[in-house]
């Protein structure tokens, strides 16, 4: 079996969880991956300081779509404060596959759009989150 395109990655790519629109929503974000022109947006509904529900929309490669889909399952119910503190390792460990330096942007796109929507700061990833490739 391919070490990158594992069955669960392809399953999330073909049947992404929490994809679509969510109206009404309390927060939203939209990001582009300049490497390939991919686009990923998110709608978030908030209740009692937590993500009550969330939907991604857009298009992208298997890695960016699967990473967003897998993360979405963890993000629903998470306190907003905790979302702001999530780092690149969280997203990449969750994805569970070796990600090359070039595909890192794909793997982090979902978390980037969510963090941007929640914190209002879309500069993430910066520093080590941006550059450190997973072995």
């Amino acid at each position, binding site marked *: 079996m*391919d070490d990158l*395109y594992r069955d669960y990655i*392809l399953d999330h790519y073909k049947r992404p969880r929490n994809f679509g629109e969510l109206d009404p929503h309390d927060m939203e974000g939209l990001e582009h991956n300049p*490497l390939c*022109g*991919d686009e990923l947006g998110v709608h978030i509904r908030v209740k009692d300081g937590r993500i009550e529900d969330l939907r991604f929309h857009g298009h*992208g*490669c*298997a*890695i960016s779509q699967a990473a967003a889909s897998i993360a979405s399952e963890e993000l629903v119910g998470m306190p907003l404060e905790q979302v702001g503190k999530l780092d690149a390792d969280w997203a990449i460990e969750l994805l569970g596959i070796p990600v090359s330096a070039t595909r890192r942007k794909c793997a982090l796109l979902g978390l980037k759009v969510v963090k941007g929507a929640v914190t209002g700061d879309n500069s993430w990833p910066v520093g080590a989150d941006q550059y450190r490739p997973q072995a």
Partner: protein
Amino acid sequence: MSVVTTLDVRADFPILSEEFDGRPLIYLDSGATSQKPATVIDAMNAYYRERNANVHRGVYALAQEADAAYDGARTKIASFAGWEQKATIFTKNVTEAINLVAYAWGRANIGPGDAVLTTQMEHHANIVPWQQLCKEKGAQLRYLEVDKRGELSPEQLDRELERGDVKLVAFTHVSNVLGTIVPVAEMTARIRAAGAVSVVDGAQAVPHMPVDAAALGADFYAWTGHKALGPTGIGVLHGRASILEEMEPFLTGGDMIASVDFDGATWNELPYKFEAGTPPIAETVGLGAAVDYLSALNMERVRTHEQELTGYMLERLAEVPGLCVVGPPEPEHRGGLASFTIEGMHAHDIAELAGRGGVCIRAGHHCAQPLMRCLGVGATARASVGVYNEPRDVDALIDALIAGRRIFGL
């Protein structure tokens, strides 16, 4: 299946006998950059080992050797593309060549109410400099449309020129995404008749087919060394001498002056007026060796080989289910590349899986985001050929694509 004439030159390219992960290199990304023959690498090494000195400054013998190497390469490079030597300017790349025209000609000749025309199929290098110019000058930037076949319409060009406000038309010779060969001479004749200036991006043309830029009638024609078997860091701008004479310089400083005093300066003669500072000497020598190599191969033969190989590639790509190639279907109407999508697979995943099969292809928007939006795709995968490719490289690509589809459960 098409018959393909191979040039049998793989052995001339040292990197093609290297192994990567225990496999030979299958390189189908010459549209991004070409591999280099040993003669180019050796010429640059020999320059640094035996002839290195700064140019246009020294009176000692070594400096004169460096001068001879630099300006001697210019003679070969100019004649390779059919242009006069004194109007052949060295830049860093095509991007800098186009910026030179946009700044030095554009800023002086484009004003409010004027229009610049470019096309929907351009590389960002032939869009963004014109956007910046038009924004700064209050001019309008308009785009010639790409039709369903991936071609431009001369009639639309006529209609645009008839509006009377077009001062400059910038377009590519060969599209880096669609592969379309644009009928340059037909375009420049219309542009000249309308009193406008033409700027042609020849990056994907000069390395792959005979190009006589003078016969094509362009006022400016730009191409780059690293896609033409030469090194990075050396681009070429052929300009009409009468226009270049009238222009102010682009970059200023050393080497481009005739004289300087505390109140001002006068400019050196062509082409040096447009070459400020120490130029990329070794790179120019390397590009000189590259055009020698291509000339010895004969550009007619190179074009025949690449057209036949592209025909073979299009036939074999059609065997892959769900695969769709963009651009004109006939190999005689396209350069040596094919951009494609596969239903159910993103272009990035196609390129990653091809790479795992040992085949190097490109994926993404190919620095042509506006065109990708016109085509209605986020990204395509692109396989592009060079003098060293053979049908078996295409076969390896097809095998990798079919294996990739299987991994994706398609």
